[in-house]
Structure formats: structure tokens, C-alpha cells
């Protein structure tokens, strides 16, 4: 029987699962983190001046830019007093060699859909506050989330990006002139949005049915197909539980995930608060 020795990189390409297993047996991950450790997260608010609110979020190498633009529009027939939020996620071929140019990939569509569901069901913003004049004019917020570097766990970055960008949005005070049917807005008076809830996410994957990996990188994502995402809010309530793939998840795993998600919430809230403070000082 012949044995071959490979360089680490070659071994990773030939046997990605074995490669990960070797690390996990020593209770560490390929990038040196512990199983329960999140990558370094940074948030930069107000980086794009052509938007009404924006943020740049980095989780490790995964980088996402979220820009929100507000436009005035006629409200929907079914809800004449409410404005609306339109999220969209773009995963361009620039962010990873996995994505080919063309129409939005399934991954991007699933991300857009889940963010849409989160916005609808978690009542983050009272849509009535976006109303300028009932039945004639409301604010529409277009939230475009562009991923520029994909290194796993894009969903977390997108959610954090969206929520922080929303908290960065300042809308001009708008009045509806009935006689002319026009909306007038003054640039001088800018009002921030009143967010009723600030949910932040935490994503995990389960590898080999036993190892719970927090904040998977792209390498880990490609071999650990069981993914769990928990989004909780400031009161410790849960807004989303999303779990796909794999057959090894038990309530114990979920309990652990929920408690780690709560700790993560405190971490993210602190990072965002620091960023807001330093932003206000500038």
C-alpha cells in the first residue's frame, strides 16, 4: 500500500471534508478560530453619499455594501396609508469565482426572499410612518445590497447591512401640496427612521452530524451542508429560525444556537453603537 503526502492546499482541494475533519479533531478550524468564535465584524455607516442611508459590513473577508434610496410613489391599492420597503440582493461574479455572469443565481434569489420575509414578518419599521399623504404619496425605500467579496455567511452580512443602513437613513420632511398634486421636500430638515425592532442574525453549520461551526467561511460552507440561521431582537425574542439540509439537528443543537445568537446580538449591538458614536463625533 502506498501512501502519498500532499501539501495542505492540494489536500484541501482533493479531499475537502477530510481536510476539515483533521482540524475539527483538534477543536480548531482552518482559519485558526475556535468552533464558537465569530470572525471579526466591522460596520461602516454612511459610506455612500448618494444614498439616503448606507452601510458597509465586513464579517471576516465577506464584504457587503447596502445602500438605501428613498423615492416617492403612489401607495399600493390594498394599503393606502403605508409606504413600502423593497430589498434586493446582488451576488455579482466579482465576489467569487463561483458566480457566473447572467440573471440572478438561485443563491441571490433565496437571500432576497428571506430578507423580504424578515422585513414583512418582524415589523421592523411601522410602514405608516412612511406615509406622506394617504392615498396619494408615500415613501418607497429601495434597499440594494451588493456583495463584493464572498467568503461564506453572506446572509448574516446582508441582514446586518440592511438593518444598520436603515438606522442610518434620514428622510427629508415631505409635505403634499394638494392643489398641485406635488410632494415638496426640504433638504435641511432630515428625520431619521423610527425602527421598532433591530434584529441581528447568527448563522451556524453542522458538519459530520456533530460539530457545530459558528459563522462558516466559504470553505466550510462548501462541505457542511446543514445550515441554521437564528435572528433575534433586542428583547431576546426570535424573529427567524431557518434551517436547511442535513439530518442531524436536534432541539439541543437549536437551544445552543439560540443562546449563542443572543450573545452575538450583544456583540453586534456594541459594534454598531461604537460606529454610531464615532460617526456622530465626525
Amino acid at each position, binding site marked *: 500500500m502506498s501512501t502519498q503526502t500532499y501539501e495542505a492546499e492540494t489536500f484541501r482541494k482533493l479531499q475537502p471534508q477530510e481536510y476539515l475533519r483533521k482540524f475539527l479533531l483538534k477543536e480548531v478550524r482552518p482559519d485558526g478560530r475556535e468552533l464558537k468564535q465569530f470572525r471579526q465584524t466591522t460596520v461602516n455607516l454612511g459610506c455612500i453619499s448618494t444614498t439616503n442611508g448606507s452601510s458597509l459590513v465586513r464579517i471576516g473577508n465577506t464584504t457587503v455594501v447596502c445602500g438605501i434610496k428613498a423615492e416617492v410613489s403612489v401607495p399600493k391599492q390594498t394599503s393606502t396609508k403605508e409606504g413600502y420597503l423593497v430589498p434586493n440582493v446582488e451576488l455579482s461574479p466579482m465576489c467569487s469565482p463561483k458566480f457566473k455572469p447572467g440573471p440572478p443565481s438561485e443563491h441571490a434569489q433565496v437571500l432576497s*426572499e428571506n430578507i423580504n420575509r424578515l422585513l414583512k414578518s418582524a415589523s421592523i419599521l411601522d410602514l405608516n410612518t412612511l406615509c406622506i399623504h394617504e392615498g396619494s404619496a408615500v415613501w418607497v425605500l429601495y434597499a440594494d445590497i451588493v456583495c463584493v467579496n464572498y467568503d461564506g455567511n453572506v446572509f448574516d452580512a446582508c441582514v446586518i447591512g440592511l438593518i444598520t443602513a436603515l438606522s442610518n437613513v434620514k428622510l427629508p420632511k415631505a409635505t403634499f401640496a394638494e392643489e398641485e398634486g406635488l410632494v415638496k421636500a426640504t433638504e435641511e430638515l432630515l428625520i431619521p427612521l423610527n425602527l421598532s425592532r433591530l434584529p441581528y442574525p447568527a448563522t451556524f453549520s453542522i458538519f459530520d452530524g456533530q460539530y457545530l461551526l459558528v459563522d462558516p467561511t466559504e470553505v466550510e460552507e462548501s462541505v457542511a451542508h446543514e445550515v441554521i440561521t437564528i435572528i433575534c431582537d433586542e428583547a431576546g425574542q426570535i424573529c427567524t429560525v431557518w434551517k436547511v*439540509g442535513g439530518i442531524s*439537528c436536534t432541539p439541543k443543537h*437549536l*437551544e445552543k444556537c*439560540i443562546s449563542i445568537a443572543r450573545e452575538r446580538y450583544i456583540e453586534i449591538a456594541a459594534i454598531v453603537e461604537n460606529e454610531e458614536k464615532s460617526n456622530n463625533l465626525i
Partner: protein
Amino acid sequence: MSLNRVDKRKFTEIRPISIEQNYVNKDGSALFKFGDSAVLCSINGPTEVKVRDEKLDKATIDVLFKPWIGSPGTNEKTHELVLRSTLESIIQANLHPRTLIQVVCQVLMDDGSILATAINATTMALINAGISMRDIAVAVSCVICKDGTILIDPKEQEIEENQSFHTFAFNKVSLNLLFCESFGVFTEKQYFDCYELSKTAAQEVINEIHNAIKYNITNGR
């Protein structure tokens, strides 16, 4: 909300299930109904696969989800991802390398809990097609009302009115969680209550599936 549900069911009662097999002339097919929600699933495979989708060591699973009205959008794409990920862990794909197993789900009537209906329909269709599986997936949905009551297998109207919507899929052998989708605002305790109630309801669905298979075998195809 109200003590009675719209259709006078108990809180933890699922709607009457109806299963029909061999509905269409494909390798396997099944129609699964939760009351008025009906999904028809048809399976084609293992069959020939395009070279670019070919996997050397296992079968490629391709899912198509067609809605009741309108053309497929991001919602349907998400359902496709969910079904595909669930099936990839259950089907013994390594027995059929370099082939394609095509799953098509068509929603015939949508009265709430459609993803759960689709997962169950897919399970029945796979059994009908005779594709080897490690386990089978059964799914159930529930909602939490504003007053905290949990309603199992909600109709469309109950979903629209309530605080949060959950869909769970379990596997039969170990009743582990295969898939979970919960959107809304709820506490951890409420979540696990939903989990337990759905697990119990899933057991009923498993019994119905057993009966349907027994019926099929004893009465011949």
C-alpha cells in the same frame, strides 16, 4: 384570538389528509392534500443528466416548484432550495451516480401550509417511484396567535391574521429536524412548544402515509 378556528377544528388538529398515488404517468407521482391545500409531485428518474450538471459520485437532484397562480418568483426558488437540500440528505444518491432525479411540484390549490404539503407530496412520490431513501421526510406547519395559542396546520386565513408562521419537517426514523422555517416574532419557549406539537402532528402524517402505502400494496397498482 377566537376559541374556535374557522373550520371548527381543535387547535392541534390537522386537516383531513388525502393521498393519491400514480396520479400521472411518470416514474413516480403523488397528490397530497392537507384539507384544501393540494400539491401534485411527479418524479422522473434516475434518468440521463446533462454533462455540466453531472456528479461523479452521486445523482443530481433537480427540483422545480410551480405555483398555483402566476409565474415562479423568488418565493418558489426558495421552496426549490428547501426541497433540494432536504432530499439530498435523504435520498441515497450515491446508488445512482451520474444520473438525474427530477422532481416537479405543482401547486393545485393553495389554502395555506403549502410548503409542508409539497414536502409530504414529494415523499409519497419518491416512495411511489421506488427510489431508495435513508429515511422519509414529513412536514407540518403551525402559527402562533397574538394571544399565544398555537394552531397546527393553518389555513391561508389563519396565516395572514397571526403573529408568526412556522414550518417543520422531520425524518421518520429519529424524528430529527430536517428543515425549519419560522418567521415572525416569538419567544424561545413558544418556538419549542411549536416544535413539540408539530412533531406529534408529524406522527399522524406518518401514519397516514403508512396507510396509503399499505392500501396501494394490498389493492395492487
